[in-house]
């Protein structure tokens, strides 16, 4: 079956602009996670959604970052007024249940000029 997909694959934007990153999880997976990975670094947790529960936003680095998950499926990560330090690969993962095996998308590479 289809895996996790993310779009766009690459995004170049100017400092101060808003960007939207999309994640399509595996159908039926109740948990969805967003991570950020800077060059050569580990994964930084951003936010996760589990079913209809309130999302855990504890990893979002600032109020410029927000995410939503519509209908328990597709998720969008929005970064407002982008800064150069936002440049990174943004990874999305989904799992059948929270804290179980995660299936990752290919990521969106964001470059803020």
């Amino acid at each position: 079956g289809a895996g996790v997909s993310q779009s766009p694959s690459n995004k170049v934007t100017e400092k101060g602009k808003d960007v939207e990153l999309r994640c399509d999880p595996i159908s039926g997976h109740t948990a969805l996670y967003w991570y950020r990975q800077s060059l050569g670094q580990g994964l930084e947790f951003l936010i996760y959604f589990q079913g209809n529960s309130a999302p855990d936003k504890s990893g979002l680095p600032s109020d410029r970052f927000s995410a939503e998950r519509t209908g328990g499926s597709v998720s969008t990560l929005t970064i407002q007024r982008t800064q150069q330090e936002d440049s990174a690969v943004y990874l999305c993962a989904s799992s059948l249940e929270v804290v179980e095996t995660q299936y990752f998308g290919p990521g969106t590479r964001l470059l803020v000029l």
Partner: protein
Amino acid sequence: SQQGEEDPQALSIQEGENATMNCSYKTSINNLQWYRQNSGRGLVHLILIRSNEREKHSGRLRVTLDTSKKSSSLLITASRAADTASYFCAAPRRGKIIFGKGTRLHILP
């Protein structure tokens, strides 16, 4: 703070040799997961070991878990060039899965 921390940060071995990577974590867990990442993009799940398991195998991979020491190890036997990648352990913490910074494994021809 890191829930999972891998050791060493980097490892270079000759093709055919075994590679061992270690992971330490801080809080109690119900499972620990290992992932591989090629070329800085999506991660691929390797093995999930539950807290009541001590050892698990998958092909050339062997994972051990010692909950008393809060540590895990990943052994790759008979390494191949294709095993060159970054390897991450990940441990749940309050619903989140926290990743370490990874071990960069390089297999030399």
